[in-house]
């Protein structure tokens, strides 16, 4: 075994796995509480945290150094933002016609 080649990432993999399972349970449990308008916000914050954990540790975005890769990830998020922002801007201003 070439255990000297790389420090083992297995510990962090299992840590992320447990965090994701806890997040799933949390979002399931919180959904049963009445938080008024904050239910959706809490659910989306937990989902985004879980998605970030998967992207950073399982997809190895953490520590990625290639500039092209950063460009693709950032422009993807940017275009998703444009899609959502312009659609919602249209929806939110329909009342003024």
């Amino acid at each position, binding site marked *: 075994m070439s255990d000297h080649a790389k420090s083992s990432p297995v510990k962090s993999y299992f840590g992320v796995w447990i965090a994701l399972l806890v997040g799933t349970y949390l979002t399931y449990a919180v959904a049963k509480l009445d938080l008024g308008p904050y239910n959706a916000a809490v659910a989306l914050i937990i989902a985004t945290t879980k*998605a970030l954990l998967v992207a950073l540790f399982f*997809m190895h975005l953490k520590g990625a150094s290639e500039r092209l890769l950063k460009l693709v990830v950032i422009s993807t998020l940017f275009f998703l933002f444009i*899609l959502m922002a312009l659609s*919602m801007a249209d929806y939110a201003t329909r009342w003024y016609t």
Partner: protein
Amino acid sequence: MSDSQAAAQTSVHEDLHSPALLHHFATEEQQRNASNFGMWIFLGTEVMFFGGLFVSYLIYRLWYFGDFGAASKSIDATLGATNTAVLICSSLTVVLAIWGAQIASRKLMIGSLILTMLFGLAFLGIKGKEYKDKFEEHHVPGASFSFENVPIPGHPDQYANPRHAQIFFALYFIMTGLHALHMIVGLGIFTWLLVMAWKGRFTPEYHTPLEVGGLYWHFVDIVWIYLFPLLYLIDRHP
């Protein structure tokens, strides 16, 4: 081995390189980065593909707020939560398979690949049970759709509008159906990866297909991480 030693070694054995290195790439690292980069660009297009569906969900949810809550409540959230956990476990086994290739452990690599596929099949099985329930309850949009006298959460005196609830179920079936289609494609990719791993094609130096297939699998997991609270968990509180 230090970098200068490695450089000296490659200059001596210039004609010797991994058989996996294609001639239009300078180094194995460049080849590996190019493959991963291609998958990331594809995932960028996938974000926009699912993004359109998420935006239409968002707008209809705001429009038909209570109807969507009533329709979401009719879905078995425990099945959805179980499926979330199953997918998370499959993502763990994907990174363990890559780790197995990196430390040249054939057992860990092949065992993790088989587990990943079993988790994927379990996900589709649970999804099938969920779809079967919806068919039996006549919650599939179409001629036999029925959603009569279902109270709106928080407003027990009002019933959900079946036409609006039908839009929720249309989005539910399109979004989870497209996600399930991605799972089926992923299972196909992992069948191929398993065959390649079985033949001993992956070494600590070369296992790029595992990494690229893994990126795809994790992305499908991320889509589900958002689908779960948006489709299964809205207006669950009493």
